[in-house]
């Protein structure tokens, strides 16, 4: 099987521009991953394909850089006491099942509606999930940033933690006790999303925060453990089929190992809601970017005709806004780290109520 695949695969010749592009995107993707637990993959895969790398090789090489990056990031954040290994492993186990189901659904759609149908399904999944979840995360972060105060555990997570449904698991670092059965849908959805849009963390991190009840800090750090487990399994699978272009992987890794550690350091400097703010912003911009790609697939399926100039323009705008999502996320992280250099910036803001009380007295 792999010999046949091998013959069909063409590995590209590298030039300086391609190397610089991969290194830079690797660094920025790593920075975002180290800070919010995932990200970068959605730019790297199409980015490599635009350099002429075949789709399968791009996915394989990207995944092969993802798991060591996640391992280094998780290790760094473990040293800061932010990683709940038990939660990561429990989530990864159910995520593995989710990945398999996600792949089956992809194959089913591919056989029924072809590549354009599959692309349309991926884009719709992107838009629906990211707008819903990203919008919620962003609103929550805005609320904390506007009215001050600290992160609180969500009411839903509080309620779920009170339900005694054996087996109950105590997660020490996340500092919570919850039934295993409530972690299953979150892990499963993370895997499903990872198999569909390659960024499981966009469900995993908010799921751990709002459903399981971990803090933003622990959720984003623990996501790196899940990414490592899933990426390791996936990379072995791709490598068995001879699809990993180690040169691309190592160039991206050169940048992303620098970025992931900087992102991890950043989490210790800023207030927790900044993690949500960065995550929500990136998710919403990526959703917009994928929405721009939808007309192209709709036209390919022959559902209705779109002028080719418009399709071309939207495709370019879609990729540009993908890069912008990552760039804006990175700028927000670096900006927050820069402002947090002074100790006073790390103190929680006074709430509006406290301010009003103080001005009245």
């Amino acid at each position: 099987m792999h010999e046949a695949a091998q013959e069909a695969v063409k590995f590209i010749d590298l030039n300086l521009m391609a190397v610089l592009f991969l290194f830079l995107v690797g660094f920025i993707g790593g920075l975002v991953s180290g800070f919010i637990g995932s990200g970068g993959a959605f730019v790297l895969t199409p980015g490599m394909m635009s350099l002429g790398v075949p789709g399968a090789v791009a996915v394989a090489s990207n995944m092969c850089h993802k798991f060591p990056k996640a391992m280094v990031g998780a290790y760094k954040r473990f040293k800061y006491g932010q990683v709940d290994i038990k939660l990561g492993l429990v989530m990864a186990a159910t995520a593995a099942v989710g990945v398999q189901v996600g792949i089956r659904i992809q194959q089913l759609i591919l056989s029924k509606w072809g590549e354009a149908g599959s692309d349309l399904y991926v884009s719709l999944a992107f838009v629906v999930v990211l707008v819903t979840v990203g919008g919620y995360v962003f609103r929550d972060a805005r609320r904390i940033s506007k009215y001050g105060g600290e992160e609180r555990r969500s009411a839903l997570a509080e309620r779920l933690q009170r339900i005694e449904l054996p087996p109950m698991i105590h997660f020490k670092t996340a500092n919570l006790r919850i039934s295993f059965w409530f972690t299953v849908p979150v892990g499963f959805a993370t895997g499903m999303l990872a198999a569909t849009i390659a960024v499981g963390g966009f469900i995993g991190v908010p799921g751990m925060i709002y459903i399981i009840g971990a803090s933003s800090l622990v959720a984003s750090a623990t996501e790196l453990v899940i990414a490592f487990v899933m990426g390791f399994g996936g990379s072995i699978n791709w490598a068995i089929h001879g699809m990993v272009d180690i040169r691309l992987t190592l160039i991206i890794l050169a940048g992303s190992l620098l970025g992931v550690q900087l992102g991890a350091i950043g989490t210790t400097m800023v207030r927790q809601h900044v993690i949500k703010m960065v995550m929500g912003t990136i998710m919403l911009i990526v959703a917009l970017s994928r929405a721009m790609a939808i007309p192209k697939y709709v036209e390919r399926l022959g559902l209705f005709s779109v002028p080719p100039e418009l399709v071309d323009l939207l495709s370019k705008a879609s990729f540009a806004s993908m890069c912008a999502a990552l760039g804006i996320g990175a700028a927000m992280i670096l900006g927050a780290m820069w402002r947090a250099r002074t100790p006073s910036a790390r103190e929680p803001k006074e709430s509006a109520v406290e301010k009003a009380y103080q001005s009245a007295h």
Partner: protein
Amino acid sequence: MAQVKDEPSRPVGKMVLFGLLTAALYGLIFANADWVMEYFTRGAWYAAMPVATVFVFSFVHGAFASHLWSVLGVGVSRKPAQPRPPKVRKALRRRRPQPQLRLET
């Protein structure tokens, strides 16, 4: 990964050492890119080669990256943002006094 402590001192020596090691590893792979690509993409058991390579790179380059940020003074706040919960020692089982037989003399 190499054990790295976040300490206020700037580990310039370690950074240079791991930096040179990283550069040597990259040089080794890219100088023999044709040979590497031929063997690493053969699939089956050869899959161990790319996977082992990224592990080695992540240890060496990861250590270099860590030292680099320390040297550049991109520091960590003194108190960890997520303090580890204190370890709770299990209470010892209380031994209940058992009724004992006594001979009345």
